[in-house]
């Protein structure tokens, strides 16, 4: 008696399964696509780090556990690349930001022909990085480029030679190219932020007695701070991963003096064809950048909470 009505109300088994799986079926195409495009390569890539994958060795492919990471711990070239990465990233971001900010401040003032100058300033951004690298490599080459001769004429060099082949100076070559190439990014984003600052704040401050420097510190900088924080974070991560210019201009040389972690990964993977080891390095770089990003996010949070 008690089971009778329930049995009646209960839909057939198939129907219930179909009902329950309906939302999953609808979203399945999108989910499958995302998994296939994003997760599979990531997981496969990470799995390489724990396997012996050498393109020229047909017997490779086996699981090696943490062997790659142990080797990495002993790898002096890796530590060198890590130091170079710090230098490369720090100098590039600092100079790009500084020049970008100066440029944005200049472009924020109205002057005749500002539209044209703005367009020209943002041109480097549109140049493919490989082209920029080649161009700068040629500029530094005393046979075809003018820069060494100018440095020589200024007394900065004993003779016009190529700084890209000087172990002590080589890093400044790609850094110069990177700064030239990356200034527009900062200039664009900072200019947009600058133009969003209400003009009457500056007027109020100038009536209150603030000079240009005081206005910059008490109005411009606080308004730019969130933009600065986020752009510097993004650029730091991006530049430390950015090996194009180095590969094109110096290929990590001379004597690994310009080898950064990203270009070291590139060398391991596509020159030595050791995909397993390259993946292991990439994983370490990923972890380091994650830690860095977390620290910045934490810093931002505490700053926001305080302010």
């Amino acid at each position, binding site marked *: 008696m008690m089971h009778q009505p329930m049995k009646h109300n209960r839909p057939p088994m198939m129907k219930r399964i179909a009902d329950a799986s309906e939302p999953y079926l609808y979203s399945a195409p999108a989910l499958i696509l995302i998994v296939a495009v994003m997760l599979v390569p990531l997981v496969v890539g990470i799995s390489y780090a724990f396997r012996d994958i050498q393109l020229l060795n047909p017997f490779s492919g086996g699981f090696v556990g943490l062997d790659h990471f142990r080797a990495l711990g002993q790898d002096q070239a890796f530590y060198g690349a890590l130091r170079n990465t710090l230098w490369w990233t720090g100098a590039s971001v600092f100079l790009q930001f500084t020049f970008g900010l100066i440029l944005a401040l200049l472009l924020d003032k109205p002057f005749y022909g500002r539209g044209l100058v703005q367009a020209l300033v943002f041109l480097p951004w549109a140049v493919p990085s490989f082209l920029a690298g080649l161009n700068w490599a040629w500029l530094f080459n005393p046979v075809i480029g003018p820069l060494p001769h100018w440095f020589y004429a200024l007394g900065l060099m004993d003779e016009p030679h190529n700084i890209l082949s000087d172990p002590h100076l080589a890093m400044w070559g790609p850094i110069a190219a990177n700064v030239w190439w990356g200034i527009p990014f900062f200039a664009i984003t900072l200019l947009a932020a600058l133009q969003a600052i*209400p003009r*009457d*704040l500056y*007027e*109020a401050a100038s*009536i*209150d*007695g*603030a000079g240009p420097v005081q206005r910059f510190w008490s109005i411009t900088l606080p308004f730019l701070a969130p933009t600065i924080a986020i752009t510097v974070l993004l650029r730091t991560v991006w530049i430390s991963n950015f090996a194009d210019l180095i590969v094109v201009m110096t290929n990590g040389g001379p004597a690994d003096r310009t080898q950064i972690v990203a270009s070291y990964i590139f060398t391991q993977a596509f020159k030595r064809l050791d995909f397993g080891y390259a993946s292991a390095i990439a994983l370490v770089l990923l972890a380091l950048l994650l830690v860095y990003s977390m620290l910045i996010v934490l810093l931002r949070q505490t700053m926001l909470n305080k302010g």
Partner: protein
Amino acid sequence: MASIDIESVRKSYGPVSVLHGVDLAIKDGEFIVLVGPSGCGKSTLLRMIAGLEEVTGGEIRISGNRVNDLAPKDRDIAMVFQSYALYPHMSVADNMSYSLRLRKTAKDKIASAVSSAATKLGLDPLLERRPKALSGGQRQRVAMGRAIVRQPKAFLFDEPLSNLDARLREQMRAEIKKLHADLKATSIYVTHDQIEAMTLADRIVAMHGGVVQQVGTPLELYDTPANLFVAGFIGSPGMNFLEGRYVKTGEGAGVRLSDGTVVPVAPRAGLAPETTVTLGIRPEHVVIAKDGMLEATVDLVEPTGFGIILHLSLHGLPFKIFTLDRDALSAGPTVRVDFPQKHLHVFDETGSRAD
């Protein structure tokens, strides 16, 4: 405290002339209101006094010293902006003390200046807040506080109440007036609102199209407007105007309207007979009378609670009456009106007052 003298001051932006020679002598401690419709150049004049705009021609003097080429910070004036322009990254206290800190005033002096200004304006409980955590009225007070802590020579206000709702505007208007009675600082106040001008000003400067139309006390402007613009701009509901011709009559003079009715007016020495004139009368001065000389149809009756506004058609033109008499509620469909002579204004062909 200072006097401010403005002498044939002009302003142009490139080829566009915005102010065509303004003369104004502001006495020490006076409250001057610049009033006029939007775009007439009030803000431009105020900003030139503040030093935020270049002076194209003429001279501005504060306490007798020419300031044309002085930076804003060296003029010792304070300004309250329509947008308030509070520094969003500073607390209320820091906003108010910013100018003193820049001048390296002693800490205890700053503290006492800020706290006395805060007390005057009722800002004491808000001193640690950021501007974004304040209401519009509170922000307005902070902007005022920022101006008064400095004890400047003069206060400049650019439509400081425009962003407030009507009730708050009324309240702040009274506070500004009290504050001025208290501080007695020279003040120049820009507004497009003639009520604000009437209630606040020692003297009103009515402007139109970059030209000063009339300078005078509120009641001078109200009772003897110098021209059609001032007559129409000051007062709400605005003055009624009727076109006609000036005529001599047996007893004196009159204005003959289009239908032939002659409205008697006091004789005007400067007017030749048969010149075209405009007759003006304020809505509250029109008298409704059974045997009135003109008949008008009633279009609309607007009770305001305080009084009643009758919208009429007189000779086909809109015409308004303001009356306190509640009988007017049932007026219509036509009324007869009279114009008491002493309340009639006559303006000549150029729009200037004829007396």
